[in-house]
């Protein structure tokens, strides 16, 4: 019973009553001082101790002698009695240290377990890598820092995503705080990108009006800061991903090609977009490559008068981007979302030489040798692909315009359509495994599925 464990106050109170007069002791002879001292020193035999205690338990005189003896002990005079610990001795008392120690150990295990086996999210530390390429000596006549404010802003945006800015070789982001930062940066970038896309749609409509002469004389030049904002947002969309061994070289080659094409495109003064569908899709449709290193994506085409200045800035930015790539400064590379030339999307399987290349009209190709050779795969879609993610050599998810969402679980031998949570574009996707993926739509919403698209949960 619980009551039995409580101190019995009634019994304790009753026992406290005692006489102040000496009572007669037992008739037995009390032990002499030698026996008393030997009992106190615990040098008696067990039988002698029993005999003594039997006598002491009934002999008030011996009890008093023993009480006086223990009070006279040097340790009880100068310090607390034997068995009494110093004031801070409780710190080392196992009775409370044992459970506290066990709790600490359990907490450490729990934290370790949570860190090692954290549930898969859209951006996982194990799959994120902010890569700083090996530094190479810069050209003597080339400046280290970008001169243009826009380029500086792009660098700042890249730095905001970059978890660390140490000059050491590839750093893996494993801390939860870093993951959270990247998560937030990714979501903010997606939202900003969606706004930028919407702004571009409006702008495209206005440009279309201008081109058709409906609003002749009311041309609205694209503000420079708006361009920069869009470019920054797009730069943030490029999130670092692990690269397969051997893939880096091919990606660098693709990057260089892309940058060259940007320069050519700038010189060619691309024609204005004829529809309201501008932005990323427009850029892809116009075969306008997007530089990766400086993450600049020209998302719209302004009239010739306005474009002249913008092209100048873009050239500078492209040059800065090439310079940064060449000098090995921060370059956030997104292997799964690499946008290669001709509006293609390249997705790399982690830790592998397997690449997928998605064309702008639904074409799918796969390379098993880091891009040296490509084989065409059967695609069930004709839409353009905007983003993709491979969680292994056999599992790949890819999303595109009109909400198209494909998945393969056998290395691309079979691509299947996955029910999509949106009819708009899928601008970012992160596959964790064949069942779990997280995507961001063009309107800024984030969805997650854990059952291969059967159910989507907005986040």
């Amino acid at each position, binding site marked *: 019973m619980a009551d*039995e464990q409580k*101190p*019995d106050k*009634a*019994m*304790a*109170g*009753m*026992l*406290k*009553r*005692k*006489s*102040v*007069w*000496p*009572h*007669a*002791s*037992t008739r037995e002879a009390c032990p*002499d*001082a*030698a*026996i*008393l*001292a*030997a009992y*106190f*020193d*615990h*040098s*008696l035999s067990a039988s002698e101790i*029993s005999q003594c*205690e*039997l006598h*002491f*338990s*009934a*002999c*008030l*005189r011996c*009890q*008093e*002698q*023993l*009480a*006086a*003896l*223990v*009070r*006279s*002990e*040097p340790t*009880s*005079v100068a310090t*607390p*009695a*034997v*068995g*009494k610990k110093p004031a801070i001795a409780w710190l080392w008392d196992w009775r409370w240290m044992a459970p506290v120690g066990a709790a600490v150990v359990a907490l450490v295990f729990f934290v370790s377990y949570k860190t090692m086996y954290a549930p898969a999210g859209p951006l996982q530390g194990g799959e994120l890598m902010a890569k700083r390429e090996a530094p190479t000596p810069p050209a003597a006549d080339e400046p280290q820092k970008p001169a243009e404010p826009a380029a500086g802003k792009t660098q700042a945006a890249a730095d905001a995503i970059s978890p660390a800015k140490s000059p050491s070789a590839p750093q893996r982001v494993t801390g939860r705080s870093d993951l959270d930062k990247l998560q937030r940066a990714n979501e903010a970038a997606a939202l900003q990108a969606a706004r930028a896309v919407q702004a571009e749609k409006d702008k495209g409509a206005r440009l279309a009006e201008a081109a058709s002469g409906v609003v002749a004389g009311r041309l609205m030049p694209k503000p420079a800061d708006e361009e920069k904002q869009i470019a920054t947002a797009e730069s943030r969309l490029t999130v670092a991903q692990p690269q397969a061994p051997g893939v880096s070289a091919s990606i660098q080659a693709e990057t260089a090609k892309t940058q060259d094409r940007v320069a050519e495109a700038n010189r060619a003064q691309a024609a204005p977009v004829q529809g309201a569908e501008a932005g990323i899709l427009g850029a892809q449709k116009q075969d306008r490559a997007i530089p990766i290193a400086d993450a600049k994506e020209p998302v719209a085409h302004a009239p010739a008068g306005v474009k002249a200045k913008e092209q100048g800035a873009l050239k500078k930015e492209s040059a800065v981007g090439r310079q940064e790539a060449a000098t090995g400064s921060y370059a956030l590379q997104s292997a799964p979302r690499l946008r290669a030339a001709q509006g293609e999307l390249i997705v790399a399987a982690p830790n592998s030489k397997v690449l997928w290349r998605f064309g702008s009209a639904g074409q799918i190709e796969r390379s098993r040798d880091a891009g040296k050779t490509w084989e065409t795969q059967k695609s069930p879609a004709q839409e353009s692909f905007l983003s993709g993610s491979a969680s292994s050599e056999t599992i790949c998810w890819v999303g595109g315009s009109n909400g198209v969402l494909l998945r393969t679980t056998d290395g691309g031998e079979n691509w299947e359509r996955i029910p999509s949570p949106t009819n708009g574009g899928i601008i970012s996707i992160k596959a964790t495994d064949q069942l779990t993926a997280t995507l961001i739509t063009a309107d800024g919403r984030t969805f997650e599925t854990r059952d291969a698209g059967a159910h989507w949960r907005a986040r």
Partner: protein
Amino acid sequence: MPGGEKLLEAHASRVDKLLQRAQDSASAFGGVSRAPFIDALQRSITSRFRDSSPARADVETYLDSLNIEDLALAVACLEASEPAWEYFISRFRPDLYSAARAICRHDEAAARELADSLYGELFGAGRSGQQGSGERKSLFDYFHGRSKLSTWLRAILSQRHVDSVRASRRSESLDDEQTEQEVSAVRASSVGGPEIDPDRARYLSLLQVALTAALAALAPRDRLRLAYYYVQDLTLAQIGRLLSEHEATTSRHLDRTRRELRKQVDAALRHEKRLSEAQIRLCYEYAMEEWPFDLTRALSERE
């Protein structure tokens, strides 16, 4: 008990070793003679195995357990060795006064008197120092080496002090305490008041009887623990020191003993005295208000 000499003859080699140890330790105070030391060993063995015929191994174990160094000093002092006495005084005098102060509750004058009287007896000039034949008898004759010399000295001080206090209590009235008659009068008046439950005295009497029986049924060690705690007002640490247990163990045993007592008292009142739960509850309530019970007497009067 056969003669100690015969025993020692059977353990000659062991005795030689002990003597060698004694000589080694006695170098600090001038050494110790062989014959007095062997006499002391004989007295010690005789005291220990007074009523039995010990086995050889028991004797050797006993001899090995003796505090030979302290016994050698006692023997040397008994032989009136001046260096031994100087050594004894320089080594034990401060502790002896300190212990006397603790025993006398820091009454400096009483402590000094107690310690000085002990010196006299140790030298053989006190109450035990003179025998009928006129031969000087020292207290050191009663030290057998079973404990440390310092503990033995404190035990003697404690005995002297307790006997002195008990004698004074018997002969002197206690001004600050009620006399037994006064207590009885208070009990009678409180028990017999007109506004009090007429069964109150009966309930208290039944409770006393049940508690006394429960106390008598306790194991000696439990009774001793209760006595140390409630009668002698020792701390848990001091009780643990006396009973060779940790103070936490002492506390746990005290709790267990109290619960056991409560259980036995309840059972006695319920089954033997046929009291109801309400009546038992009343017993405890009355006891908490006024409780004519003497734990000292209950613990001392063992059946």
